[in-house]
Structures are given as C-alpha cells and as structure tokens.
C-alpha cells in the first residue's frame, strides 16, 4: 500500500517536473512547423503545420542533403569519442593512482590549461594547424581528443579513481599484477559508468562546438551539422522555419545517445559488486 502510493507520487512529481522542463521543447516543435509570418504570434501550435520546413530544410543545399552532414558529424564524433574514452582513462589513472616525480606540477598545469579562455589561444592554434596543413580537415577537431580527451574529463576520472578503495589494488598486487594489470583489470571496469559519461559528454559537446568547426572546416563537402545549420542565418535572410526544424532534428542523435547510454552510467558498480 505504502509503496504503491510512494511510487505514484514519485511518478507524478517526475512527470510534472519533466513536462516543465520539456515545455520549451514543445514550443520549439510548434515553432518549427510555423510559417515565418506566424512565428510572432504567441500561439504554441501553427494554424497549418508546415511539414515542408523539415523536408526543405533537410534538402536546403543543392549539393548535399542533411544526411551527408550527419554522416560527416558522426564520423568526426566517432574519432572524438574513441579518442577521449581511450586516452582519458589512461591519463587519469596516471594522475589518480601512480606516484611519479612532478606529478603535482603536471596536474596543476593540466588544471591551468582549463582556466585560460580559449579565445586567446585559438588564433595561435589556427596558425599552427594551418602551417601543418591540417586546415579544412577534421584533424584539428579530432586530434586533441586523442591526447587525454581534455582536462575536464581527465580530472573527472581522477576524482572517480580516487574514490576507489586502494585495498583492491593491494590485493591485485599481491596476486602479482603490475600497475598496468591493475589499470586494466581493476580500475577500468570500475570506472565504466564514468567512462560512459565521458563518451556522452564528448559526443554532445563536440556536436555543439561551432566556433572550432567554422574555423577549421571550409568546404561544404566536409560540413558538420552545426555548420550546415548556420547556413540558414544570413544577415538579412533567415529561414526561420527550416532553421528551427533542422536544429531540432540536429539534437536528436544526442537525445537518442543519452536515452540509451544512460543505463550504463547509472547502473553503476552497485551491481558489479565492489566489496566482497
């Protein structure tokens, strides 16, 4: 009895709260179906839904459909996520578990790199990448992820690794495991939820990272979804319906990834069993 009422109140609270958070999304879908003249009206839903905002938006460019841009972006994301997940854990293990000279110094540097606003390093970085001949390729966008995936994720994983009791390492050591063995057999499985978090965030944030994309990608053949979306907004010519429709479509991969990947990060280690 008690638990059923508890469950119902839980669901009630959560659905009301979800609806509140989703209200803007509903507004967004409505707006994406409106004619331009109708957008200024306070109504949520259009009088006649313009589904062609979606089809026209999808095919706005004579050269490529959005499928091409989605393909490009997913390809870039594949690199980013692989790079981030692969290397962030390695580096975090080094910082979080191992003793070595100047560890504190390097860790401070790692944190400091996050504190300098990117706006002032973007130009020297562009000059560097330009000299290397990497402009108009995905390398400047993807490569940095292979170097630890960024300070944010390294620090995140360090915190998770430090939350794992050392008894486990000690036990493994007695069994003859090296530091490498401990990493692969103990730490890596235990931080799986955090790694999924890294993967999701890497995916979502690089999807959003318009400023870097606009700098480094110049030919339409290589455009990402983010770049393609900006094509709808010119100085005096904004295709509102198509813009809203396509930007809605553009966040769908992130939504889907989030929806399905979360079961891994929330499963946690409770079921894996930690002690005994």
């Amino acid at each position, binding site marked *: 009895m008690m638990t059923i009422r508890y469950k119902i109140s839980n669901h009630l609270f959560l659905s009301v709260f979800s609806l509140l958070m989703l209200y803007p999304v509903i507004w967004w879908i409505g707006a994406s179906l409106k004619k331009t003249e109708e957008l200024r009206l306070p109504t949520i839903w259009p009088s006649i839904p313009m589904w062609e905002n979606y089809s026209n938006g999808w095919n706005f460019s004579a050269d490529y459909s959005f499928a091409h841009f989605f393909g490009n972006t997913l390809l870039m994301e594949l690199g980013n996520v692989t790079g981030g997940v692969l290397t962030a854990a390695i580096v975090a293990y*080094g910082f979080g578990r191992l003793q070595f000279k100047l560890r504190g110094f390097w860790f401070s540097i790692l944190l400091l790199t996050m504190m300098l606003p990117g706006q002032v390093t973007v130009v020297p970085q562009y000059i560097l990448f330009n000299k290397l001949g990497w402009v108009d390729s995905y390398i400047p966008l993807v490569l940095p992820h292979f170097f*630890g995936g960024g300070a944010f994720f390294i620090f995140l994983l360090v915190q998770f690794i430090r939350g794992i009791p050392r008894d486990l390492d000690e036990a493994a050591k007695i069994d003859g495991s090296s530091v490498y063995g401990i990493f692969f057999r103990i730490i890596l499985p235990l931080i799986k939820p955090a790694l999924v978090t890294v993967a999701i965030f890497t995916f979502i944030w690089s999807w959003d990272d318009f400023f870097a994309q606009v700098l480094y990608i110049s030919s339409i053949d290589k455009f990402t979804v983010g770049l393609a979306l900006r094509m709808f907004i010119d100085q005096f010519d904004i295709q509102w319906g198509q813009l809203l429709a396509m930007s809605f479509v553009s966040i769908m991969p992130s939504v889907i990834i989030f929806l399905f990947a979360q079961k891994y990060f929330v*499963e946690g280690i409770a079921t894996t069993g930690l002690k005994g």
Partner: protein
Amino acid sequence: MGTAETLTQAPHTKAARTSLRKRKNKEETNLAGYIFIAPWLIGFLLLTLWPIAQSFYLSFTEYSLLEAPVWTGTDNYANIFRNDDTFTKSLSVTFIFVLISVPLKLFFSLLVAMALSKNIRGMNVYRTAIYFPSLIGGSIAVAALWRNMFGLEGYVNQVLSWFGIQGVGWITNPDTALGTLILLNTWQFGSTMVIFLAGLKQIPQELYESASVDGAGRFRKFVSITLPMLSPVMFFNLVLGVIGSFQTFTSAFIITKGGPINSTYVYALFLYEKAFKHYQMGYASALAWILLVIVAVLTALNFLASRYWVFYESDGGRAK
C-alpha cells in the same frame, strides 16, 4: 600551482608511511606514471603549449590580428588596471554570476540527481526529458525561447499578470537581465546532474543496507554516507563550476549581447569582443591572463579547503 601538490601529497605521504619500498620500485612507478600520462603530456607539449605561450607573449603587444604584433611592454596590463572601467564592470558582473549560479546549480543538480537515481520504471525517459534543456544549450533556438519566456510580453509576465503583478522586460531591464542568465544557466544543469548521478551510483548499496540495519533514517544516511562518498564528485563539480562560470559566454553572447548597459557584459564576452570585434588581441590576451590568475587563486583555495571536507576512499577513508 602549489595546490595540486597538496592534493597529491596525501597519498604520497601515506605510501611512504605504509611501507618502505625499494628505490627501484619507485623508479618503476616513475616510469609507469609518465607512460600513463604520456598521451596528455605529448598533446600538451605539441599542441597546447605553443598557443598558450603565444598568448602570453601577445599580452605584451598591440595586436590587431590583421597586422603583426608590436611589443608594448606592460602597457596592456597598466591600461586594464588604471583606465578601464569596463574591465571593473565586467569583472564584477562575472563575480556576481559565479557567486550565485555555482551554488545554485550545484544544489539544484544534486537534488534532481537524487530524485533521478531511484530505480523506477520509465526513469530513463524522465532523465532524458530533464536533461533535454541542457542539450539545446548553444542552439540558436535558445535565444528565441528565452525571449519568449522573459520578454515584456513573455510567458512569465503572463503568469504574473494572473496575480495582478505587472512584470518588467526581464531580459532588457538592467536590474534583472543578469538574473535571467543565471536562471538559464541553472536550468541547464544537466551535465552537473549527470556527474552527480554517476557518483551516486558508485556508492556501494551495502553501506546503505548496513546503515538501515543500524536504524539510520534517510537524513542520517544522506549526511553520513551520501555526502562523504559523493564529496570527490561534488568537489569536481564545484571546481569545474567555478572555472566554467568565470568563462561563461554563450548565453550572454546570443541573448543579451552584454546589455542592457553592460549589465550582463560578462568577462569572456568582453574579452571576445576586444579580440575579434575591436581588433585588440593583445589587450584581450592580457585580460585572459588576468582571469587565469584570478581563477587559479580561487581554485587553489578550493583545493586547500577540500582537505577539510573531501573524502577519498583511496586515502583509506580520512582526508586530512
């Protein structure tokens, strides 16, 4: 910089205490340590260090981007501290933003994460719905949306009018504009929440079960299990929240453009406009390095304070 030293000292001294290992062993872990951090270290030395050093050099120059930089010594710094009212203004706007939005977001996202950590049916849908606003963060739609909510004729004022309250143009009123940006920032609590969620799930259920056996109530469990076990993650969210909020940019850039009358002219926006709109990259670089020092000092304080409240399982349970 000394801060991270203190962060890493605890396990170090402990290791020294627990066993006097052979020197050879130490060299081995030295090597292993560098092997593990190598991906980052190589990337840092090859890709990151040069642009950072460049920006430091540029902070002592006049650099329009369109012409080669000209060395001007400490002029930029002197001008910033002596003559620039906008610097003071944007710094204070940013401080207010950080002071309010960081605790607010931490509190809110922890609360939601706890509500969402239960295992009930359909939870993944709720989680996704609640995470949704954070996904549209940088999207173009968010500016239009925020105007719809907080404009003079927006939904907020419509609701207020039911209670006979005459609203203001929240985004265009110099007294409330920053508040709406803080609210937007809090509304997009998704990533902080997800990290809390992952942290919560890492807490062994056994701890709660044995506490239940001991007759502990919900509040007691929260205080003596959840909070300490979650403290590393909370510390992470706090440190990153501070670092990130000092660089807050997107919402001010796309919604208010820093206005009205500079009331939302956050530091990063000021810096961006100096660099790319007013062709003063040298000056902007100096601004960036000043921000770096401010944030570094605050982060150092954070690390120092963490010794008193952050609990690392790996340190054997007690942080000192």
